[in-house]
């Protein structure tokens, strides 16, 4: 458990073993490093935890006139600004993980696995999208692992 604040901060795109869920266990590190976005860092009773949002390469599928609430698409230009290929972020798929090597495989590297950082404008945009998601979804249900809670 890390007792000093991790170097990973809100706004960082970081390589994580994001827990994908089926067919893999949803409460275990995923099988391969995957880029996630750090929405924030929280204190715990014994250290810290990261709140991560899922990202995936390419546009949201299926293509349509709009994307679901909570999904942000990064087209070629937006992704290039982050030194990435086009991808989308899904704020409806989150993970709470401790800053440990099992969840952050490059934590001990000089960059801690951070591959890009959102500037202030992008962080504000993502936070606004998260706020909108909360505002418009009065009856949020939370799935922890494979258990759905009301």
């Amino acid at each position, binding site marked *: 458990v890390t007792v000093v604040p991790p170097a990973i901060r809100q706004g960082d795109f970081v390589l994580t073993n994001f827990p994908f869920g089926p067919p893999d266990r949803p*409460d275990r590190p995923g099988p391969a490093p995957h880029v996630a976005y750090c929405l924030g860092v929280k204190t715990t009773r014994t250290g810290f935890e990261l709140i991560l949002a899922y990202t995936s390469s390419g546009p949201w599928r299926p293509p349509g006139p709009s994307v679901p609430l909570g999904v942000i698409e990064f087209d070629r230009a937006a992704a290039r600004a982050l030194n990435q290929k086009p991808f989308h972020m899904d704020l409806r798929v989150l993970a*709470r993980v401790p800053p440990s090597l099992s969840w952050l495989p490059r934590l001990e590297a000089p960059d801690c696995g951070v591959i890009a950082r959102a500037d202030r404008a992008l962080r504000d945009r993502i936070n606004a999208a998260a706020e909108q998601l909360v505002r418009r979804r009065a009856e949020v249900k939370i799935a922890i692992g494979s258990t759905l809670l009301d």
Partner: protein
Amino acid sequence: MMQTGAMTENASQSRTGITVRLPPEIRDRIQHVAAAERRSIAGYLHMLIERDLRARDEAERVIHVFTAPELQDEPLGTLVREDDETDEGYASRAATLRALLGGQ
């Protein structure tokens, strides 16, 4: 009777086969639609199921929060504040994250 999943399409260890029994007229219609979309019947049914599950997630407003076992019993702690964050911005972000994670 049709069979879907690993037995008819892109068999892989992680897929499970199921058997679906349908009236012949529906089976014929599905076959035509699938052929028009250049899909197998199993692939077409798979697509329909995934589409429906996505729609249900939307309708039910589901947010998935995967929680590491180390944090399962951990209450939602205090959000670490960024150096350049205003009081208002910090309060807003903290409230949003609390709500997204199922807190009050």
